[in-house]
């Protein structure tokens, strides 16, 4: 076995041992000593203090180290293993000094409460933290992996090569750091939270498939109703709005493309709403649709009450299209500009009228941007939240309530964040199917 392989195995062993390590915390209130022992995995998933955020970094960098080594990149493997071990070391130092760990405190206080002890938080003396021997073995293993992976450094050429190998990581490092902390960690945690009972602040309690059982099968339950109603309304909205999110910008882009007088000016006007926030947009449009003094009812003389279905759907679609039109329109404009003019001239010579030219030259020429914007629109509209919240949120809640509104409400106002996470995961799965298609397109296009 080569040295690289051994280093890779050590890195993997680090990850395995990590989850077997444990931390024991002890504290005393009025001579009553309470002790809790948590595995590092449990500490990681409590995510209750700053130092714990070093743990996802530890795991991710060590996994990258193992992968690099398996592919024979020794310099990178050494560096990542070293970074991982250092992160872990800093965690061990920081964690034992952190007294304000809410998760630990609540676990300890349960024991005092069980003993019938009445106390205030400040009665708790220092929390003493002890690490299991395995913890230190894990730490040592991390450094050992780094040392084993170390390439030869004898000659100047060796050192030069290592520097050249590691240089790119200095550039991508900062982004990788934020990606691990603010993307990978919450994403994995979000999946985990879907299987727990959770109130957003304390430790989630694992309940297995319970949330999904309630959401998917328990008829008559509020959450069952919310999922069905919310998802159905979300899908309805996607179906109603996406065609217009394509057609309106396409029409506008085609008109702008004629280069009629004032096109630049009109382009700015059509783009303007895209610069606004959803609150501004909905606030403005609320006034348009108000029955007592709105433009719709008093200028266009409509008799409808725009805030109840089916009219409310029309309102939501109008507002959304007005808001998102700009971005898509500009994409179409540049796509139109890239279609060679000779094609049009040839068609004109053959006697094709404007509509035929559009059908046979423009549309095929815009195949890719059309597909791209379609997928983008579907994803964006699946995430609908602000429009129904602000426009129809008051009064007739359920008729236009979308899934994200329930996700937010259950998590923030009803302390049912576990259920929210499960709903979010279901919505996420719907979006994922669409975005997978998008990624395939992006990759194919960028490879060209």
């Amino acid at each position: 076995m080569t040295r690289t392989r051994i280093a890779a195995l050590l890195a993997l062993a680090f990850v395995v041992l990590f989850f077997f390590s444990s931390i024991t915390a002890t504290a005393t209130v009025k001579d009553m000593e309470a002790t809790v022992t948590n595995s590092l995995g449990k500490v990681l998933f409590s995510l209750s203090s700053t130092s714990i955020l070093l743990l996802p970094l530890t795991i991710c960098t060590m996994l990258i180290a193992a992968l690099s080594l398996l592919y024979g990149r020794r310099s990178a493997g050494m560096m990542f293993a070293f970074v991982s071990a250092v992160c872990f070391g800093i965690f061990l130092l920081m964690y034992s000094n952190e007294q304000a760990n809410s998760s630990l405190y609540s676990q300890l206080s349960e024991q005092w409460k069980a003993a019938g002890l009445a106390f205030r938080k400040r009665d708790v003396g220092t929390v003493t933290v002890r690490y299991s021997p395995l913890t230190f073995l894990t730490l040592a293993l991390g450094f050992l992996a780094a040392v084993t992976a170390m390439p030869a450094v004898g000659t100047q050429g060796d050192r030069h090569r290592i520097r050249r190998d590691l240089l790119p990581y200095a550039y991508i490092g900062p982004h990788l750091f934020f990606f691990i902390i603010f993307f990978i960690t919450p994403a994995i945690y979000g999946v985990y939270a879907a299987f727990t009972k959770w109130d957003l602040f304390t430790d989630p309690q694992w309940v297995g498939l319970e949330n999904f059982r309630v959401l998917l099968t328990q008829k008559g339950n509020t959450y069952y109703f919310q999922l069905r109603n919310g998802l159905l309304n979300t899908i309805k909205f996607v179906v109603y709005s996406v065609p217009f999110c394509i057609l309106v910008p396409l029409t506008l882009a085609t008109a702008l493309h004629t280069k009629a007088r004032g096109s630049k000016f009109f382009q700015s006007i059509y783009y303007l709403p895209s610069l606004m926030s959803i609150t501004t947009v909905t606030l403005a449009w609320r006034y348009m649709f108000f029955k007592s003094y709105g433009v719709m009812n008093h200028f266009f003389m409509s008799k409808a009450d725009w805030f109840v279905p089916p009219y409310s759907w029309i309102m939501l679609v109008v507002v959304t299209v007005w808001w998102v039109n700009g971005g898509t329109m500009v994409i179409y404009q540049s796509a139109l500009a890239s279609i060679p003019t000779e094609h049009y001239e040839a068609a004109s010579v053959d006697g094709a009228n404007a509509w035929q030219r559009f059908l046979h030259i423009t549309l095929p020429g815009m195949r890719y941007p059309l597909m791209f914007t379609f997928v983008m629109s579907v994803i964006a509209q699946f995430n609908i939240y602000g429009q129904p919240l602000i426009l129809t949120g008051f009064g007739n809640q359920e008729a236009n309530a979308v899934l994200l509104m329930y996700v937010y409400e259950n998590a923030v106002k009803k302390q049912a964040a576990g259920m929210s996470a499960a709903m979010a995961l279901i919505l996420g799965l719907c979006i994922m199917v669409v975005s997978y298609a998008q990624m395939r397109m992006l990759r194919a296009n960028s490879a060209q």
Partner: protein
Amino acid sequence: MRTSKYEKRFAGIFMTVLAFFWLIPIVWLLLNSFKTDSDFITSFSNMKGPLDYVSRLWPHNFTTINYVEMFIGGAGANTTANLLEMSKNSFIVSISQMLLVVVLTSLSAYAYERLHFPGGNAIFWTLMYMSMFPNVVAMLPLFKISNALGWVNNLNALIWPALAGVFNIFLLRNFLKGIPRDFDEAASIDGANSFQIYARIILPAMKPVLIVVALFSFNGAWNDFLWPTLVMTDVKRQTLTAGLRLLMGQYEQKWAHLIAATVVSIVPPFLLYLGAQGYFLQGISIQAGVKG
């Protein structure tokens, strides 16, 4: 494309009519922001038909009191909602996020595209595939993380998480593909190190697309809604656009005040857009990958 005179004229009329409809909400807001609260309500009583409605939109007793009271203070201002404070928050968040995104993504894009390193492409596409994981799922845990960092009601929570995005790197990378390598190679032969090449050659060359990325991240931060309402529970720490939603409840009887605040919230992104308009089409077409 050569268009006939007839087609051009038709398109012109079509665009004019549509622009009129397009601007209705904005003009409506602007006009009504110059009425007093009481004028606003009385101006819409006993309306007789569409033309009468239009005449009533005009602010006959023109006043700027709403703007003054919302942002500077006065008898009609709500003491709990400080719009000046909210605007300051918005500016801090948007500008710092914009600068950080530009620096971080350009560094990464440069490394992935120009510093050929083994495994770089694999890392990049792994990040891209991971980033398609829907944000909805990550939102609540992100709150938990912010809480662990002590960032609830702290502007940091609105700035740093946005730096995890990968799509901007993709944009810049695609743009870099179109820039010839001759310059970097020449500089490299002259003894410039990789950072000098990045700072002196790559950054200036990426200027148009960097401006677009900057504009989008400024606007994204300025206009974000769901995340600020989740993580900022204190009104004073809220951003301007997300804070408007809170004002809707508090200013239920002071419509004109609320409208004035709304108008102001549009101004910074609009000014930025006017400044960067020239780069816009170019930038967005790169975004769509049209010029892949």
